């Protein structure tokens, strides 16, 4: 027994947890670095072309921007509830929360599709000016990251239904949740920069 006790790693301190796993935090750090670079492009362009940025936002659909914001924070809430429910041993409820999070997240590409259609009808293309080039660059990159998150949700939902996660071991579900919350943080910065400030 003492040999077993020595072989066991010590539990992490309460303030040194890795939510999910190491790999997802490498990915999230890369995502943050990528968007920090893209935001730098936004601010450099904004400093050089203040008039284009002051006028650009008025030509975007603030309804679409607001709807995506609501969908992102709601799906983040549902996925956080999925993790906490599983910790409480409520597996079925956790699966339902995760399914609800997936449904809310699927609304994002749908609204973005409608928004891009509305943009094209109103002449808002990538060549319409520096503001719109930056707008498409930022929002399309974020949409790609959201697609990875949605694929991750599908994978985690399949694993959850197969019984892969338990209240004690659910690193995969928590990794997905961490990635989605990080992607949410990025959108919560994009929304005011493009739809509010401009």
């Amino acid at each position, binding site marked *: 027994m003492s040999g077993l006790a020595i072989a066991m790693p010590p539990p992490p301190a309460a303030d040194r947890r890795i939510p999910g796993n190491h790999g997802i935090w490498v990915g999230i750090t890369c995502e943050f670095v990528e968007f920090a670079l893209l935001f730098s492009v936004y601010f450099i362009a904004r400093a050089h072309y203040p008039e284009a940025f002051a006028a650009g936002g008025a030509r975007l659909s603030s309804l679409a921007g607001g709807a995506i914001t609501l969908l992102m924070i709601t799906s983040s809430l549902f996925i956080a509830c999925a993790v*906490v429910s599983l910790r409480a041993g409520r597996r079925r409820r956790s699966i339902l929360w995760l399914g609800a999070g997936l449904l809310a997240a699927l609304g994002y590409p749908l609204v973005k599709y409608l928004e891009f259609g509305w943009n094209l009808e109103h002449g808002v293309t990538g060549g319409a000016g520096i503001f719109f080039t930056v707008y498409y660059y930022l929002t399309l990159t974020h949409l790609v990251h959201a697609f990875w998150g949605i694929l991750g949700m599908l994978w985690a939902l399949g694993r959850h239904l197969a019984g892969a996660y338990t209240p004690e071991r659910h690193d995969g579900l928590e990794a997905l949740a961490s990635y989605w919350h990080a992607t949410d*943080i990025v959108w919560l910065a994009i929304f*005011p920069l493009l739809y509010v400030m401009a």
Partner: protein
Amino acid sequence: MDKNAALPRRPQPNLAWAWCALVGLSALGALLGAAFHEAGWLPAAVALVVWLKGTVVARAFLEERQAHPFIRWVLRLFIAFVPLALLLVAVLGRSAG
């Protein structure tokens, strides 16, 4: 060994409050932008709203306070990046003008 032993095991009221705070802050930011488009203090107000929203997500959803110090610093640096850049561009733009 349960690495989640110290974490909440029931859906916390603070998750719902966090959602309400995020909706409220997003609406506040949009209203400020629409009503005070030309105001000189708008970038500072929006920077504060962006920082608050990121902090709410990090604390309530990502459980930042229990996370490894590296994760805490990555989150804090990224969440502070856009507000600081907004303030910097606003100050430089004003001094250039």
